[in-house]
C-alpha cells in the first residue's frame, strides 16, 4: 500500500476536485447526471475497500448497506417528513451500523470464502425482506425518495434535473471529499496499521496484541456507514429505493468497481466507480450485449492488470518520473 509522496498527491487530488467541480459547467447535463451515482458509489466503495483492500475481508453482500441507505432516505423523506439531506445521510449511516452489528458479530469470525458467503446470505435475506414485505417496503415497486432540502434550502424554483446537477451535485462532491479525507485518516492511523496486520497475518497479529475480531468488527461497521451514505445519495438521485439495490448482482458490481480501479490503492476504488459508471452507460448505449463486454473487461483486468487501473496509472507515473 505505497502511496505517492505527499505533495504530488495533494496537487493531484486538488486537480481532480477542481475538475469535478467544473464538470457541470462544461459537460452536458446527461454526463453530469452520470457523475452523481459515481459519487454515491465512490463513497460506498471507500467503506467497502476498508474491509476488502485494507482488512482483507471480501464481502459479497455489501449492497445490503447501500440499499439500507436508499430505503432510509425513502422512509425519512416519504413517511417521517424529514427532508434535511444532512440528517438523512447521518441517520442512514447510523441505521446501517445498527443493522451491520449482528451481521458483523457473526461474519468476522470467518475469513475468505466463508466470510464472503455469509455476507452474501445476509444480503439475500435483506433482499427477500424488501421484496416480500409489501406493506412496509412497497415490494418490487420500491419506495419513493422525495427531494431533500440542502442545509435547510428546498430549491423549489429548480426543476428536478437542475436541482440534481446543481446544488445537489456540489453537496455530494463535498461529502465525498470530507468522507474520503476521513477514510484517509483512518487507514493511516494506528488503527489502520492494525487492520493491515490483520489482513497480512491474523495469527501473528494476535500475538502482537492486535484484537483481530474486534477490529474486523469495527472495520465492518465503518464500511456499513459509508455504504449507506452512498446509498442515500443514490436513492435521492434516482428518486426511488428499489429492492434491486440489495440484490446480489449489485454487490457483485461493487466488487467489480473495486477490482477495476485497484483495491491495493486508496484511490483505486474511486477511479473504479467513475470508470464503471461511464463504461456501463456507454456500453448500454452502444450494444444490447453490454453485460458481455463488461464481463470481458473484468476478465482482462483480473488476468492482465491485477492491480487495476490505479496500478496501471502508478506504473506509468513511475516510468514518467524516472525518465
Amino acid at each position: 500500500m505505497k502511496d505517492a509522496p505527499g505533495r504530488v498527491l495533494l496537487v493531484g487530488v486538488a486537480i481532480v476536485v477542481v475538475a469535478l467541480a467544473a464538470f457541470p459547467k462544461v459537460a452536458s447535463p446527461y454526463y453530469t447526471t452520470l457523475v452523481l451515482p459515481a459519487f454515491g458509489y465512490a463513497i460506498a466503495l471507500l467503506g467497502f475497500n476498508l474491509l476488502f483492500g485494507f482488512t482483507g475481508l471480501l464481502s459479497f453482500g455489501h449492497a445490503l448497506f447501500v440499499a439500507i441507505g436508499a430505503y432510509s432516505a425513502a422512509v425519512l423523506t416519504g413517511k417521517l417528513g424529514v427532508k434535511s439531506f444532512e440528517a438523512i445521510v447521518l441517520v442512514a449511516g447510523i441505521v446501517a451500523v445498527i443493522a451491520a452489528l449482528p451481521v458483523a458479530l457473526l461474519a468476522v469470525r470467518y475469513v475468505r470464502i466463508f466470510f464472503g458467503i455469509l455476507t452474501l446470505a445476509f444480503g439475500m435475506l435483506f433482499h427477500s425482506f424488501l421484496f416480500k414485505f409489501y406493506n412496509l417496503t412497497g415490494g418490487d415497486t420500491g419506495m419513493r425518495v422525495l427531494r431533500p432540502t440542502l442545509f435547510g434550502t428546498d430549491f423549489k424554483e429548480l426543476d428536478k434535473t437542475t436541482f440534481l446537477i446543481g446544488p445537489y451535485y456540489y453537496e455530494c462532491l463535498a461529502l465525498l471529499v470530507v468522507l474520503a479525507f476521513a477514510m484517509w485518516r483512518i487507514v493511516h492511523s494506528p488503527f489502520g496499521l492494525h487492520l493491515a496486520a490483520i489482513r497480512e497475518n491474523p495469527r501473528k497479529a494476535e500475538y502482537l496484541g492486535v484484537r483481530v475480531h474486534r477490529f474486523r468488527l469495527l472495520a465492518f461497521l465503518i464500511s456499513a456507514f459509508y455504504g449507506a451514505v452512498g446509498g442515500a445519495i443514490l436513492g435521492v438521485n434516482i428518486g426511488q429505493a428499489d429492492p434491486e439495490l440489495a440484490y446480489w448482482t449489485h454487490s457483485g458490481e461493487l466488487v467489480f468497481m473495486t477490482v477495476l480501479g485497484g483495491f491495493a490503492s486508496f484511490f483505486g476504488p474511486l477511479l473504479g466507480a467513475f470508470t464503471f459508471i461511464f463504461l456501463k452507460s456507454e456500453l448500454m448505449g452502444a450494444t444490447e450485449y453490454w453485460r458481455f463486454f463488461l464481463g470481458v473487461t473484468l476478465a482482462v483486468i483480473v488476468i492482465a492488470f491485477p492491480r487495476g487501473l490505479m496500478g496501471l496509472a502508478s506504473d506509468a507515473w513511475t516510468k514518467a518520473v524516472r525518465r
Partner: protein
Amino acid sequence: MSDTALIETIGVKKAYGDFVALDGVSLAVAAGETVAIVGPNGAGKTTLVNVLTGLLKPTEGVVRFKGEDIAGIGPVLLAQRGMARAFQLVHIFPALTVAETIAVAVVSHERQSLRVVASLGKNRALWQRVRDVAAIFGLDGKLDSTARLLSQGEKKLLDIASAFALVPEVILLDEPTSGVSSGDKHAIMRTLVDAAQRAGVKAILLVEHDMDLVAEYSTRIVALQGGKVLADRAPDAFFADPEIVAAIVGKRVGRLAAGHTAGRAP
C-alpha cells in the same frame, strides 16, 4: 517456588478424547532463567507451549503467569500482560515494511490502536521506538524493506524483533533457529539473548531441538516424554545422566554429552 515464579503450571493435563498430550506437568520459571523445553517429537512440547501461552485451556490443572490464572485467555490478553511468543515457522506480514511490522507491536504496547484518525506517520516517539528495536536486531538498515523480500534469517529476526517490541517480561521462543543454516544459529541465538537482556526480559522459554544451543544458552532444561516431565534440572546435571539424554536425543548422545562435559571441564 510460587512466590518467585513468573510462570507456573501445577498438574497440567491436556487430553484430546482418549489421547493424553500432557499428563500432570508441573513446572515453574523464575526471573533470570532461560528454561529449555526439550523432548522427542510427540512428547507434548507444542501442547505445553500452547497451554503456557494461554492458547489452549488445560483439561485439568492450573497455569499461572505472574500469579494470575491464564488458562485459555488467548494471545491478545497474554501480550498485554507481558508474555510474547515467536513462532517456529516464520510469521511475518508479507506486504508490510520492517518498520511497519515492528510498529504494529509498538502500537499495541502503547495502547494506541483505537486512535482511529490519529496520524501514524507523525508519531515521532513511536517511530523512534521502532528504530531502537530494529537496531537491536541489526535491522535498522532495512526499515523500509518489504518483509516479503527479506532473507530467511532476516525474516526470523524481524519476527522476533516484533515480539520484543511488546516489551515482554517473558518471551517464548519456539525453535528460534529452525530453518536457519547451522552457521547462523549461534549468531541468531547470541542476538536474541543480548536483545532479551537489553530489553529487560526477565525470563526466556526456549523450545529447541539443537542440543548444542540448549547446552550453551539454557540455565535449566525441562525434558518431556509422553506428556510427562522426565527431567527438570540444570544443564550439567542433565547431560551427566546418559539415560535421560538418550531418551531425549537418541543416538547423538555420546558426542553431545562428551562435548558438553569437555567444554565445561576445568
